[in-house]
């Protein structure tokens, strides 16, 4: 063993736990909220899947824990690393994600739980490329828009904005072919948020919003949406339109959550959950399990924990020193906030039914990895945007 290696090891240990080390400068509130949600999520996944098999009631919960552990490993690696390498490799990651999205549409893609968005990778594992697309798009757009315009340091280059729209369009287009309206909406939100944050002129923002509205109306009136997608929106306006179909899901979700009342029926004691009246209740509708079994108190706690992550993320974005970091952090916050709103909102009847998981709570490996990586990036930005010595 050479001297240099020993010194290196010593310095690594010091960097980790010494004075002013990573451990002490980390945003513990952010990590704490993530860990708390992961624990709650594991319990809810357990509760909602324990009736699947009488032999092994914890099978899904165990798989979820494994996913979380892999996610936490990813988190640790990304959080302590110099996240700026992500900026360098963003185009490569984007290309990989696109290949994944294309593969989904080939015979390699498979359908799980009615969503055709998976690639089987063997050994019973499956990857969901559209979940990967979310963080990758954040990085890619932030990289493009971080480069300021030559005339105004606070604004992005017009050409890059256009390029962003094209890149998003390609990814979103592939996802719409699956089809997955929810993820498409998430990507659109990420893109919109990062472009706005990057400093485009207000009139362009207004024009963009108008364009989005016109596009929305056009898609609606030209009948580009599939009937079931339309039904999800109409069911939101009037749940009685289709009580057996989409209305059924939204109605059952509302009944499950409402019946939790103030304190809930207790973990593992939700009758609606046990009876599996709400579909997809370990993934997209996991919030109904929280609502029924943990009550108003529990669901507010879940929303509050998500709020902590989002607000810490926003704070990190505001305190960083460069455009790239701020845009990445802002993009992550917009992404997770939108998913929280849509996911919780659809279960309580204020959002249309779309297949969007609840961050850190829903079952799903790829989504867990993506979310963990995203908060890890937030953490890494946090670590590097503060002076080393207090």
């Amino acid at each position, binding site marked *: 063993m050479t001297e240099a290696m020993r010194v290196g090891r010593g310095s690594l240990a010091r960097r980790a736990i010494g004075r002013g080390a990573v451990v002490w400068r980390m945003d513990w509130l952010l990590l704490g909220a993530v860990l708390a949600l992961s624990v709650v999520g594991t319990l809810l996944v357990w509760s909602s899947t324990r009736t699947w098999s009488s032999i092994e009631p914890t099978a899904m919960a165990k798989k979820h824990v494994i996913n979380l552990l892999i996610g936490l490993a990813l988190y640790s690696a990304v959080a302590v690393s110099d996240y700026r390498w992500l900026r360098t490799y963003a185009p490569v990651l984007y290309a990989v994600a696109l290949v994944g999205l294309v593969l989904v549409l080939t015979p390699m893609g498979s359908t799980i739980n009615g969503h055709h968005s998976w690639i089987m990778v063997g050994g019973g594992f499956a990857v969901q490329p559209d979940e990967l697309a979310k963080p990758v798009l954040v990085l890619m757009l932030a990289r493009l828009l971080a480069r300021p315009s030559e005339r105004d340091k606070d604004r992005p280059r017009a050409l890059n904005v256009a390029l962003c729209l094209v890149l998003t369009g390609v990814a979103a287009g592939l996802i719409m072919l699956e089809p997955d309206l929810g993820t498409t909406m998430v990507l659109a939100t990420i893109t919109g948020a990062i472009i706005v944050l990057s*400093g485009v002129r207000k009139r362009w923002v207004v024009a963009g919003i108008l364009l989005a509205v016109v596009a929305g109306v056009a898609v609606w009136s030209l009948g580009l949406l599939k009937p079931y997608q339309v039904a999800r929106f109409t069911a939101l306006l009037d749940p009685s339109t289709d009580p057996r179909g989409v209305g059924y899901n939204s109605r059952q979700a509302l009944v499950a959550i409402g*019946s*939790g009342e103030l304190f809930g029926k207790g973990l593992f004691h939700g009758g609606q959950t046990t009876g599996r009246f709400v579909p997809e209740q370990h993934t997209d509708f996991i919030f109904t399990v929280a609502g029924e079994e943990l009550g108003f108190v529990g669901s*507010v706690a879940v*929303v509050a924990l998500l709020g902590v992550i989002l607000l810490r993320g926003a704070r990190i974005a*505001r305190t960083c020193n460069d455009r790239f970091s*701020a845009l990445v952090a802002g993009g992550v916050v917009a992404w997770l*906030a939108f998913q929280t709103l849509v996911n919780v909102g659809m279960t*309580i*009847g204020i959002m249309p039914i779309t297949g969007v998981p609840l961050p850190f709570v829903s079952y799903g490996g790829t989504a867990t990895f993506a979310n963990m990586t995203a908060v890890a990036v937030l953490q890494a930005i946090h670590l590097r945007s503060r002076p080393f010595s207090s």
Partner: protein
Amino acid sequence: MTRLRGRLIVLQVMVIAMIVVLVVRLWQVQVVQGSRFVTVATETRTREVRVPALRGAILDSSGRPLVRNRTTLVVSVDRGRLERMPDGGAAVLRRLSGVLKVPLPKLKMEIRACGPGVSRPCWPGSPYTPIPVATNVNPRAALQILERQEDFPGVTADIQAMRDYPNGRDAAQLLGYLQPVTQSELEKREGLKANYSGVDLTGRDGLERTYDAALRGTAGLRAVQVDRMGKVITVDQQSDPVPGDILVTSIDAKVQRIVEKSLDQAMQEIPNSDGAAGVVLDVKTGRVIAMASRPNYDPRVWTGGITEKDYRRLLSDKSGKPLVSRAIAGEYAPGSTFKISSASAMIADGESLHGTFQCPGAYTVEGRSYPNAGGMSLGAISLHEALVKSCDTVFYRAGYEEWLRDGGKTPKSKVKEPMPNMAKAYGFGRRTGIDLPGESPGRIPTRAWKLDLYNSTRAEMCRRAKIGYPEMKNESRAAFAKRLANENCLEGMIFHAYEAVNLSIGQGDVLVTPLQLARAYAALVGDGNVRSPRIGWALMRPDGTLHKEIPVPVEYHLPVSDETRTYIRKALSEVPSDGTAAGAFRGFPLNIVKIGGKTGTAEVYGKEDTSWFASFAPADNPRLVTVVMVAQGGFGASTAAPAVRRIWEGIFGLGKGDNNKPIQPALPDGKPVTRLPAISRDGTQ
């Protein structure tokens, strides 16, 4: 960076706003409306599963089964669940079709709801109950369905009891049948609702219908927690089903068989006959020992759902509507069998029982001659001989004179109408009240009836009298019809002399059912009480103990003196030996069992005569009354009387059987079973 930071603050504010919105909405859903959703959730989650009770058997007077249960594997489909599936359950039905080896289109037809334009096969029952699509399923297929519930959501296989008829077609109309309870029936029977389970059948006709409530029992109730697929997770509470009572009837399966066989032979002899009926009554109790009707059908067609073809056939004119029991619903002119009533009326109206009566070959009323059958002329005879030889002119005269005494065409304010009133006293012209649905009242024409008829048809008749019948093709027939309408318009209220004359011998507008005639004879030769006949004898609990004996109501006593009744009975006792039925009873050992009876041959416009024989035995102390009617059967003496003879031979064990050996009496000495049968715990005899 300042612009970026500024916009990040906006993002932060939006996040806070979002959290506030979510929390407020959660408060609204979980705290404000929470209790309402708790109720909804409980309703969605709990199901009341009804466990059907075993339907009680129907036994004969000795405890032999007339209807019993047999178990079978039944596969049922929950249509509501299928409809909730994205493909409307098409995939499930396709798989089911493969497992059951039933063609898919047939399966689809069976689960659609019956309604206007949708005829069988279809489901006539409640849309919220599982629809049985296959019975007698082999256990392997049933097991496949139960084990692979994920492939067959909404499909169940279970053991169900089905009705079984050990005696084949015997007494089919009397026993009745079961059909799925309809939604409207369910709603109507609020109190009984809980007693119907998903596959509930309800008695639609016959004893099954009359005693439905008792036979049905009480369904068990299980409150269960179910999941979205309707799978039971836990059982909250349970009450066991209580099997239905066993109905013991007064029917004697052996006698029933004899009557059925006798009618079959009669129908064979008269291929043109469109119906026949046989009734055997216990004179002392008024209970029904046997009752049969032709045409008949095999009641097994109802078991497990009737096919379109069978159902149409049962209701069609071509099949002769075999669901209709001619014994209680068939209305026919009784002919001379009616003379017991006319004779009673004459005596009650003051004529002497021991007087002499003129029996000319014909009797002339208002210029029209009414002849005896075959122009028979006997001179001055007793009432006894008038009955034995069935002399019509004796009764024509009496009927006409009574009509005159009531004022003839211009009736007095208070008419006596002895013959119609006596007929009513014998129970004609109104339902007997037997414990069967679908009974017909028959008809006794009176002056009041004529007036009612006139008042209800006058408008139409008078209109036709004016405009005629231009839609009729045949001009002479149209002219005749117009003349008739004119006549009816002007004097349709008048009760004519010919109507009184026809009534006296059970012709014209007189209509009776075979059962009415049987109970009239039972009242005459028995204790003089007119009873409402009963088939149900007792309801026994499934453990064999007596629940309730079913009494035979006595309606009233005949307004006929015992002397007159005895006189008429004695006269009728000579009919098989010396009277109109002598030919039919030639060679019958009347010295061993003396038979009494009266033939009847009723003319029917446009058809062959209706053949009747009303009989009782033993003639000196009657225990049984037997009536046989064969529509279009010709003379009473030639068709109905031999049929009755065969029945008596079977009951008393007279004559030789098929293999030329002496036959065993079905009822030794003609005595019906008087004690209820002992029934063991499992409900068999």
